């Protein structure tokens, strides 16, 4: 399955629904989406990863890059994820300490207020 992306605005946050597989092949598409949002002035991003089926270290690199881009504008990047198989790579790489990870989009959006 390829990567699917859609975004909407909720309160102060821009919620990006990410679905499918984020790997060395599809990660550039996610990077373009994040860059495009930041360039159009959206610095408070919530990435909803509940429909993500696969995430590798290339994808993590894009998330880290996104975090740095929004922080350059005093923004924030929060994640929504409850899937153990996706959370595992965040734990292995120590990025659970870097990204706020929420169980629901509502909680993530609230944290952005």
């Amino acid at each position, binding site marked *: 399955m390829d990567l699917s992306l859609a975004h909407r605005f909720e309160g102060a946050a821009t919620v990006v629904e990410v679905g499918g597989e984020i790997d060395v*092949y599809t990660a550039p598409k996610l990077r373009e989406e994040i860059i495009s949002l930041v360039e159009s002035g959206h610095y408070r991003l919530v990435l909803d990863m509940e429909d993500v089926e696969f995430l590798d*270290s290339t994808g993590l690199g894009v998330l*880290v890059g996104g975090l740095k881009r929004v922080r350059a504008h005093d923004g924030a990047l929060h994640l929504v994820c409850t899937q153990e198989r996706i959370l595992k*790579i965040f734990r292995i790489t120590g990025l659970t300490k870097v990204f706020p990870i929420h169980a629901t989009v509502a909680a993530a959006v609230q944290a952005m207020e």
Partner: protein
Amino acid sequence: MSTVELRFTAVPAHVRTARLVVVSLGRRLGVDEELLDEVRLAVGEAAARAVRRHQASCPTATVLVRMIASEDRFVVEVADCAAVPGGSSSEVDPLDVLADHASKGLEDDDALPAGLDLAVIGGLVDDLSVHEAPDGSTVVMTWPLPGNRPPVVGAAQASG
């Protein structure tokens, strides 16, 4: 003992092909579903690493994935033929570098720390070895097959 080999052109799209083939075989061999998630991620990292190395050194050469099933083990080898350093002997921990990248506003945005792929594989696979040679490297990952695992101590004792 049976063997399956897959050769693919070193392009990112085929990293997924490699994941699908290995996971499909692993499932057929009876690898636990939970363990298959680790197989999928580890093989994906190893294949992506091989593709990156080939693109830097020998873009027209194919990457080899060899799957060997024996009675009690499922071995997956990912071999590249890139004459570039592997990053496995780096003195700095790539995970520290990654966290550092994330916390500082470094300019080289999405650049991944060298060796992050191997660090992730190392975090997933208990039985891992990386063989480095002047003309390439091979990542060897081994998983147990069900029915032949070492018995859990005490599990077979009667409870009364």
